[in-house]
């Protein structure tokens, strides 16, 4: 559905958009994945940079978003490291038994 703002509303919106790097906060939000991946073209990247400079809310949002992303990576990697220490022995034996069935080799080690 179109947004009805009238002529002055359009002018105000256009000016506000121009003052914020040529994008709204919603457009900024939609560009974040590509921005953080380095997947934006030079112009789009510059727009995001300008929006970040001129919109304090989006600047704070980007910091929090990036921080959350890094905290998630750190928390998950750490739990993986802890989990690496042991493979349940019954799982090892089940896999080796399944392989013996697969290849038709008799049981027993070696």
């Amino acid at each position: 559905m179109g947004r009805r703002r009238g002529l002055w509303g359009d002018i105000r919106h256009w000016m506000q958009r121009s003052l914020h790097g040529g994008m709204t906060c919603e457009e900024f939000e939609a560009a974040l994945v590509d921005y953080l991946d380095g997947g934006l073209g030079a112009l789009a990247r510059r727009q995001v940079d300008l929006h970040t400079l001129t919109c304090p809310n989006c600047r704070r949002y980007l910091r929090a978003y990036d921080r959350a992303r890094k905290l998630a990576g750190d928390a998950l990697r750490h739990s993986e490291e802890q989990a690496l220490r042991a493979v349940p022995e019954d799982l090892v034996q089940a896999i080796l038994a399944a392989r013996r069935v697969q290849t038709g080799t008799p049981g027993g080690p070696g």
Partner: protein
Amino acid sequence: MLAAGPGDESVQQADDGAGQAAVEDEADLVARLKAGEARAFEQIVRREGGRMLAAARRLVRDEAAAQDCVQEAFISAFRHIDSFEPRASIGAWLHRIAVNAALMRLRKQRRLAETPIDDLLPAFDAEGWRRDDLGEVPDDDPESELMRRRTREFVRAKIDLLPDAYRTALLLRDLEGWSTREAAEALGIAEGAMKVRLHRARAALKRLIEPLWTGEI
């Protein structure tokens, strides 16, 4: 810049030697697997099983199902060991097979459909401007190991609150390090949809862990 000391060259040679030995061990292990040597299979299961299990566990969130995924992954890998080409390490190859087995299970169980999480996403007015007035995020990370551990536990608990579709997107991109294209292919969705899903996952997680920097915990 510091000048290299007389001991540095021998340390470098020792590092190179250890690296070379690891490459030779890996090549030897792959050769023994391809030759069907039983001890090599046991060696690789013990060496890589834990990492594969951790990845599967994180995705399917059920111990028995995660172990099934790892078993399926090894059996599939053993069947196709002749086609393994050492462009990547055998560990990375096995890990990917285990992740794919877990994703397949989630897809079969229809757990990857997107569910609404609008309450956790940012709100915009009709013009596209942000509604929320956001607070500052402090620069500093927790200093003590105890606080870091609590932070990790808190974040992990919040990740577990995300619906499977979003949690999976987050895991594949921000933990497994898959590209958007790889993750989209594995999930059977378009690349654009994958980006939206990832963004929503990160945005929702940001909302869930905000108490960390607003001092509410």
